[in-house]
């Protein structure tokens, strides 16, 4: 967008009910999924209209309570909480390290992912869609901006020092796919 657009440093907050994380795993009795919409965190970015100015510092942090991940089966939920030791490590945290543009709406992202008290550096590709609300519809009359980030990442849970979960005859395999859709919005001009 435009070179003529004014730059604005903005803070975006993740919108929990519009954001979701889905962990898709394979088990000895078929696929099993854990999901949560209880995402919190923020992005601080410099915007050029609806474009993110990657020449300026970009910060992002995300957290997800372990206990918010549910499968629809209480036995599986209890097992995953036990294996992730949710009492001692109640939160999954991701912190952004760097971003490289691949296309106007596609970015290579590197960050630190902390699960079960163990941090692993992960790199993946995300799609980013930025939309600007009509200023007239904003509560402060300034026009909000919404960022939607989508992507997926194959993760080996053994990298996080997690014992493979098992319930009765059900054994979960270590490679899981983490899919996410993160919606963050900003109303302010800071």
């Amino acid at each position, binding site marked *: 967008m435009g070179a003529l657009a004014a730059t604005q440093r903005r803070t975006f907050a993740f919108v929990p009910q519009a*954001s*979701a*994380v889905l962990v898709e795993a394979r088990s000895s009795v078929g696929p099993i999924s854990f999901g949560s919409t209880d995402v919190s965190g923020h992005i601080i970015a410099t915007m050029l209209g609806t474009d993110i100015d990657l020449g300026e510092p970009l910060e992002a942090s995300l957290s997800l309570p372990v206990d918010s991940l549910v499968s629809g089966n209480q036995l599986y939920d209890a097992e995953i909480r036990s294996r992730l030791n949710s009492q001692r490590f109640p939160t999954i945290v991701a912190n952004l390290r760097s971003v490289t543009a691949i296309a106007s709406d596609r970015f290579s992202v590197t960050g630190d992912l902390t699960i079960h008290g163990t941090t692993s550096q992960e790199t993946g590709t995300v799609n980013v869609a930025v939309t600007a609300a009509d200023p007239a519809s904003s509560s402060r009359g300034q026009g909000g901006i919404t960022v939607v980030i989508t992507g997926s990442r194959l993760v080996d849970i053994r990298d996080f020092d997690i014992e493979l979960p098992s319930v009765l005859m059900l054994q979960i395999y270590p490679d899981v796919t983490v899919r996410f859709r993160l919606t963050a919005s900003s109303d302010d001009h800071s």
Partner: protein
Amino acid sequence: MEALLAFYFGWSMGARSGPQGMEELNAALVSLRDSDEFAALLVALRKHAAHIMRQVAERVEGADGTPMGMPDVLAKVYELIYPTAAEPAGP
């Protein structure tokens, strides 16, 4: 019920009357197996077993078969992650 009483009577007599009594006992058993009362008893037992299994399933999964509303969360997650799959089919 009459068939059940007949079976008990036949079993009692057969046990006391030797081989010939046992043939009568077998005949009584076959008669019992083919009776309407026995079929009705089996149906009642199956219904009772099904009811107990339903009760156990409800206790394991939750009262309405949806554990603590968790599927609502998962449904929301799937709707957000796979938005096109959640869209209604066109006319």
